């Protein structure tokens, strides 16, 4: 064994599936001086990898997880460690059968071969199943069992053989040292290593290790119960690791997976059982391993009854091995990847399961090498997504407790959290509550989605307010949204936008700094604004936001509730360290009301004043002539200092109006009073985020805008490129020269009628856009056409879908199909590119 090194370019902590694959990928990408350590022995150091059931069901509704899982399965195949067994998710309830239609749709989107089975067909594949209690199955022939320990070993050894890596088992991390906010060394029981980069790939121990450096990796170790029962004759006779398809008994949240002569029965049905990372026993003190704790039988008993009901033979099989296995759960059930926000060059690759491990290792390796991943956009897994309250143990436990039993659950794309609500409330909350708002959670913020007070408007606009016939389509939705939309377009509405993030950057270096981070020219006159993408080094979308210039050396970035954490990290990462720019997070100081509609100007004319040269309070001139689109002005609203920004995400004349939190309620009341004569209404996010936006074809970060796509493809490239350098410029220039492989389009559904005669309305969850013959549309870069946003365009009387299409299909009038719930519906390309369908010249916003 080599001597313990005192210095390395990169230290990876944790030799589970992630750490092992990570050093393999980093080695391939040119990292030549790495050290991998683990406190346990090799090849199984005792973490979650060692007891995983190791199977892969590739279909996932979430694009990021689906792509990472498929990439991982491919890597297992390449290592010869992928044993294809097929897998069947079985249904005991009609709701689950509906969900299978949705899974068929997602399988189609990601190109996964799948089919629905009758109970008799399930029985043919799995003769020992009790098909009488089943309604049907969702069969995926490519489901496989993988050898995660051996794959990890091969990846690790590839880096070793290349001479890029040293490995030290039985080496425990005692401390992480930092210097000037950057990781500097790893202290272990074998010695201290100075390191430029450190990656925490420690699974359930990750929070404990991160804490040593003052960083936070928000996850909790949690129990997943599993029992191995056997021997069972019918399984033994196969003489194979896995010969029968793996069964997921979805409605009981259990699985049955053959493991040579016995069956592994696993459960996500029991109560959530958490453990603190500090309490996990050592390898030496563990009866089996640190993450294989004794099974708490009482929690497992109900699952045994259900398992026997499904497979009678399990009842007489002996329970040979049974554990409370530890795995990692995060508050939003997604991994925690990327550079920690607290410590530079300290990376997290945590909360990763076997099925996505190798793919995530590749993604993190690319991220560390290129500045952003290439495999797919990681925004749902990005560690910087979390707001402070989301990183507390209180929040982690509450949310994990809520979602643990949804592991096999049927989760609606618009589903709302029940726990940890009312964490962040705008000053307008009391008024909104009184108006009967239905609140949706936006990373802690309570945002009104629609208002019961507007229910009466449903009768005013009956043509666009028909109820949805199918409960699934109507879930977490109200026709009131369409009524609010129409009323806003007819007169005026006010929208609570307090969940926005506002970041102030000031100082002599601010223009140069923002020029470097943003695509569009930020050096505009004071009182003007910029709408700009932020790009990855590879030229894909990293952000999409607006910036106001409030002073010669003072800019304010406005970004959304779901992007705040990631954007804050990105700006701060590139901020000069010489003190020439300061950063102030104003998000907690400011509240915002959007006021839009044909009567917005009249409303705000009544509500706003200013002080003239002689110190007299006079009405403020809100006309387009004095206050054109895209400009920013300070005003007084009933004495409250406010900043108005003439802009719109809903395609109407009006403003985002900002004031300090403590003035908020007074400002709300003043605007509401001024708008009374115009029948002003409160308008929910259903309009702001969906109906108003989609009619205008406005793109949303995280939906249409992801790192896989360029501004050219999204239709957001400006005619000219500024001379200043910026992140992603070279790639952007190249993209401008090339013919785009895909173009963002707006499509309209031509007929909503399903086979059952019921009208269906896609929710906008990656439904594939298909040719008329039902073929997938995959562009030259391998990206599939799928719905990124779906919603009603009430003013157009059409149901709209946003999707990228290949140039041959991106032709206005071209008829295609959208798959929804395993049925095809005819759609037509209504718009290619970014020109809005509603008010194409933007006349309403500028008149």
């Amino acid at each position, binding site marked *: 064994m080599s001597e313990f090194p005192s210095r390395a370019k990169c230290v990876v902590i944790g030799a589970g599936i992630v750490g092992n694959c990570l050093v393999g990928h980093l080695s391939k990408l040119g990292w030549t001086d790495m050290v991998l350590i683990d406190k346990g022995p090799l090849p199984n150091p005792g973490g979650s990898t060692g007891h995983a059931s190791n199977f892969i069901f590739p279909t996932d509704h979430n694009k990021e997880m689906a792509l990472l899982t498929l990439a991982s399965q491919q890597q297992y195949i390449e290592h010869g460690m992928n044993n294809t067994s097929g897998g069947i998710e079985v249904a005991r309830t009609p709701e689950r059968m509906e969900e299978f239609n949705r899974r068929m749709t997602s399988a189609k989107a990601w190109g996964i071969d799948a089919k629905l089975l009758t109970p008799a067909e399930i029985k043919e594949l799995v003769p020992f199943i009790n098909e009488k209690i089943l309604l049907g199955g969702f069969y995926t022939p490519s489901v496989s069992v993988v050898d995660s320990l051996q794959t990890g070993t091969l990846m690790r050894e590839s880096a070793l053989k290349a001479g890029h890596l040293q490995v030290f088992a039985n080496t425990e991390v005692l401390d992480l040292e930092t210097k000037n906010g950057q990781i500097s060394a790893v202290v272990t029981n074998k010695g201290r290593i100075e390191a430029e980069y450190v990656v925490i790939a420690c699974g359930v121990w990750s929070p404990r290790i991160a804490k040593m450096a003052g960083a936070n990796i928000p996850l909790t170790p949690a129990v997943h119960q599993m029992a191995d029962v056997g021997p069972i004759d019918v399984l033994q006779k196969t003489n194979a690791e896995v010969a029968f398809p793996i069964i997921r008994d979805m409605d009981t949240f259990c699985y049955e997976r053959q493991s040579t002569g016995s069956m592994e029965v696993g459960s996500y049905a029991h109560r959530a059982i958490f453990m603190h990372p500090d*309490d996990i026993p050592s390898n030496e003190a563990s009866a089996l391993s640190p993450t294989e704790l004794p099974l708490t039988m009482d929690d497992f008993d109900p699952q*045994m009854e259900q398992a026997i009901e499904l497979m009678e033979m399990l009842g007489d099989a002996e329970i040979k091995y049974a554990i409370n296995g530890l795995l990692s759960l995060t508050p939003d059930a997604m991994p925690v990847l990327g550079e920690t926000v607290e410590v530079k060059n300290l990376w997290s690759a945590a909360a990763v399961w076997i099925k996505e491990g190798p793919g995530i290792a590749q993604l993190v390796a690319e991220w560390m090498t290129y500045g952003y991943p290439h495999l797919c956009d990681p925004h749902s897994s990005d560690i910087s997504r979390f707001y402070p309250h989301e990183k507390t143990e209180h929040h982690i436990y509450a949310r994990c407790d809520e979602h643990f039993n949804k592991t096999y659950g049927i989760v609606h794309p618009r589903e709302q959290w029940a726990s940890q609500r009312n964490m962040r409330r705008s000053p307008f909350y009391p008024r909104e509550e009184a108006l009967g708002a239905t609140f949706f959670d936006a990373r802690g913020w309570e945002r009104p989605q629609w208002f019961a007070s507007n229910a009466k408007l449903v009768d005013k606009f009956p043509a666009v307010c028909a109820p949805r016939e199918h409960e699934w389509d109507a879930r977490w939705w109200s026709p009131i949204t369409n009524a609010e939309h129409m009323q806003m377009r007819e007169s005026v509405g006010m929208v609570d936008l307090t969940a926005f993030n506002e970041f102030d950057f000031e100082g002599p270096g601010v223009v140069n700094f923002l020029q470097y981070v943003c695509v569009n020219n930020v050096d505009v006159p004071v009182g003007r604004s910029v709408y700009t993408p932020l790009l990855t080094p590879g030229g894909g979308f990293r952000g999409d936001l607006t910036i106001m210039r409030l002073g010669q050396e003072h800019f304010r970035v406005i970004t959304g509730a779901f992007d705040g954490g990631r954007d804050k990290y990105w700006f701060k990462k590139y901020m000069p360290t010489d003190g020439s720019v300061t950063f102030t997070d104003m998000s907690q100081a400011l509240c915002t009301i959007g006021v839009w509609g044909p009567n917005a100007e009249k409303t705000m004319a009544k509500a706003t004043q200013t002080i003239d040269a002689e110190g007299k309070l006079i009405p403020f001139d809100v006309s387009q002539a004095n206050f054109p689109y895209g400009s920013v002005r300070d005003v007084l609203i009933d004495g409250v200092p406010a900043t108005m920004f003439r802009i719109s995400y809903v395609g109407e004349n009006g403003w985002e109006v900002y004031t300090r939190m403590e003035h908020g309620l007074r400002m709300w009341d003043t605007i509401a009073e001024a708008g009374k004569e115009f029948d002003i209404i409160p308008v929910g996010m259903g309009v702001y985020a969906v109906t108003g936006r989609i009619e205008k074809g406005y793109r949303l970060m995280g939906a249409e805008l992801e790192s896989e796509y360029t501004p050219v493809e999204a239709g957001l490239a400006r005619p000219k490129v500024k001379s200043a350098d910026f992140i992603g410029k070279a790639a952007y220039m190249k993209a401008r020269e090339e013919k785009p492989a895909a173009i963002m389009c707006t499509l309209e559904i031509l007929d909503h009628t399903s086979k059952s005669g019921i009208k269906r309305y896609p929710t906008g969850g990656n439904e594939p856009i298909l040719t008329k013959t039902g073929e997938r549309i995959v562009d030259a870069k391998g990206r599939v056409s799928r719905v990124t946003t779906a919603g009603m365009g009430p003013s157009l009387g059409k149901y709209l879908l946003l999707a990228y299409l290949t140039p041959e299909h991106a032709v206005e009038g071209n008829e295609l199909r959208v798959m929804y719930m395993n049925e095809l519906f005819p759609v037509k390309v209504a718009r290619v590119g970014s020109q809005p369908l509603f008010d194409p010249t933007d006349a309403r916003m500028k008149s």
Partner: protein
Amino acid sequence: MNILVCVKRVPAPGARINITEDGQAVDTAFLGFTVSPHEECAVEQAVQLVEKHGGEVTVLTLGPAEAEEQLRTAVSVGAAKAVLVPITESDWDPQRTAQAIASVITDLENANGKFDLVLFGNESADSCGYQVGIRVALKLGRPMVNGAKGLDIEGTIAKVRRESDAGQEIYMLPMPSAVGVKEGINLPRYPTMKGRLASKKVDVTRTESTGSVGGLKMIQLQRPPERVSNTQILGTGPEAASAVVDLLEELGVFK
């Protein structure tokens, strides 16, 4: 035939046993509980005998309320009845334990007739006193053999086999009698799922009992100093072969 098996709830530790700060107990915060391997074999032997000769197995433990878990485990592999002699302390000394158990056995036998066999594990897994079985047998006035590696029934005789350096010893015990079973006598079965579910439905009989405090007292637990073993790597792959041969010769394995 009726067989009683006595078991004791003990922690199921890993390679390293952690002791609480006050030195009064094994730190069981993250440990499961079990019975000693000898006792597992005793339960298995009883179940096998009953399967062969008819009758039923009763399992008995003296311990905290949680020891019900060990009784149910025994039921899940074939015991029919379970008796808990609850105590509030974590453990009693062997004399007191034996008195209490003997007294419960007498009560049970007065009500339901004698147990043909009372089985124990050779020794408990935690305190390793080797005492309770012998003391109970003495109190009940029954013959006892410890260290049993074989146990068969021939009419009214329990035939016990045990291993010694000189060979095998065979004991013929007239029943009722007591036997201390040693690990290796059989390969205990695991509970089945059905067995487990059935065990939940069994009523555990709770019988208070006591005895006078004996002479053995625990002062404090201490961990013996850890043995440091030096690992010398002789080489890897075929190159290591000659070094391995040298060592084996040195150890006298090759002659």
